[in-house]
């Protein structure tokens, strides 16, 4: 049997005691792998991540059924900061840097749970190697960084926490193509060099699948399709609705989009 660092077992999540958002969601992340979680807007990807990292109660949500196991232990009942200490670090959607702290202080927050000063210092150097712009703006308030710089900062914070499992929520949001490429490159690098396991939520399916080994596709609160990346890439529907490829295999132009077009809904 494969060694899974994370297993989400059939969870149901309800917001405000009424809105059922996850309806029997399951996924497994093998140790040391990069796994992609794709799906349309509102499918419940972010909710899944929050269920893992324990943030749901902060938004008046709760897991009503099923559970999450990390490293063989159930995470049930742990507060978010305890889950971080256990080794799960989430990079939140929309970067969420501390705007009125400096870049340096933001980085210090990333290393908040760590005690080894030396290790932090060397990790800091690694971050600067990955993201040179950060070094120049150490003393600036993070709120004034551009979007891309903020995303770099957010990922650096995660690196400094040295988690066993990193949850990345849409890291490419609002980033320039070159940077997207770089960031995904770095994600791959982090995975290979530090051995960090990564669960990646993305809209940019092409990029996400390029660094992952396994993928899940979510629709409406549950997984509708999953498999090794090669299999997903070969799937007709994935090609059309996630990769934007026309029937001929090439990309279709936005000029050709019809007013009334076929909308894909996986039947589930």
């Amino acid at each position, binding site marked *: 049997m494969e060694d899974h660092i994370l297993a989400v077992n059939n969870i149901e999540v309800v917001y405000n005691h009424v809105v059922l958002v996850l309806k029997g969601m399951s996924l497994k992340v093998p140790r040391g792998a990069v796994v992609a979680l794709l799906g*349309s*807007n*509102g499918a419940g990807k972010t909710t899944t991540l929050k269920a893992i990292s324990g943030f749901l109660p902060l938004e008046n949500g709760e897991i009503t059924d099923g559970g999450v196991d990390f490293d063989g232990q159930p995470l049930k009942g742990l507060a978010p900061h305890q889950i971080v200490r256990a080794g799960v670090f989430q990079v939140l959607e929309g970067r969420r840097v501390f705007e009125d702290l400096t870049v340096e202080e933001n980085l210090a927050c990333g290393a908040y749970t760590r005690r080894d000063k030396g290790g932090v210092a060397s990790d800091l150097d690694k971050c600067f190697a990955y993201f040179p*712009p950060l070094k120049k703006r150490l003393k600036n308030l993070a709120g*004034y*960084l*551009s*979007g*891309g*710089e903020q*995303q770099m900062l957010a990922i650096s914070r995660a690196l400094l926490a040295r988690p066993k499992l990193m949850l990345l929520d*849409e890291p490419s*949001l*609002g*980033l*320039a*193509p*070159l*940077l*997207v*490429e*770089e960031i995904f490159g770095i994600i791959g690098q982090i995975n290979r060099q530090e051995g960090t396991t990564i669960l990646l939520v993305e*809209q940019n399916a092409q990029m996400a699948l390029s660094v992952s080994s396994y993928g899940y596709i979510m629709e409406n609160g549950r997984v509708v399709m999953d498999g090794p990346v090669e299999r997903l890439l070969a799937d007709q529907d994935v090609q059309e*609705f*996630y990769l*934007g490829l026309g029937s001929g295999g090439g*990309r279709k*132009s*936005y*000029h050709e*989009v019809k*007013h009334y*077009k076929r*909308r*894909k809904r996986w039947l589930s």
Partner: protein
Amino acid sequence: MSAPILAVENLTLAFGGLNVLTDVSFAVQPGQIFAIIGPNGAGKTSILNCIGGFYRPRQGRVLFDGQDISRVAPDKRAALGLARTFQNIALFRGMTVLDNIKLGRHAHLRTGLLPALAYWGPAQREELELRREVEETIIDFLEIEHIRNQPVASLAYGLQKRVELARALAMRPKVLLMDEPVAGMNLEETEDMARFILDIKEERDITIVMIEHDMHMIMDISDHVVVMNFGQKIADGTPGEVQHHPEVIKAYLGEKQQR
């Protein structure tokens, strides 16, 4: 070539010691979809902020419809016909969709404080006329009838972006400035948005200035592209031209994009 509807000349902007824009100039022709692209932090949003009046450039001018508007207050610029959508959605969260859209028309309405308190005669007529027009020309067009009375805060991300567009259209713009209209959207929503943008340009004669990182969309629908890097303009031309510009590839697109 006709006279540009919008032009910036030698824009320079700095915060403290940080040079955000350096001597940026370009001109937008009426009826174009004009794209601004560039790496993060290149100063794209800052350009829109200078055009809209939220930032005061250190140097340079903004010309709109042949008139120098550099010294015009932001709200007056809106009244002249400059509308804007925002990178991070900036809807009024305490209002319904309908009220958000109506608010867009603010500068074109006349009701003053006292008539508003009385809600009498012209004030009432103006409101009813506004309601009719908003319903028929905007809500209908953007297909948001079903949510018109919902508070915007509860809407899904893609719909919020659409309401923002609706609000901008209600401003009766001559030029519409859009900051990353499809960021964070899935393919399907991106297609819808692209369709709306093309329709707006074609059916309403509105010039569009757009910042976007989605290269497919830029290449497909824009007429002219300006590329920014470190606050400077590094390229200016048709999508085809800039796509092969070596500096653009180096700073922005990366090797892979070039097929």
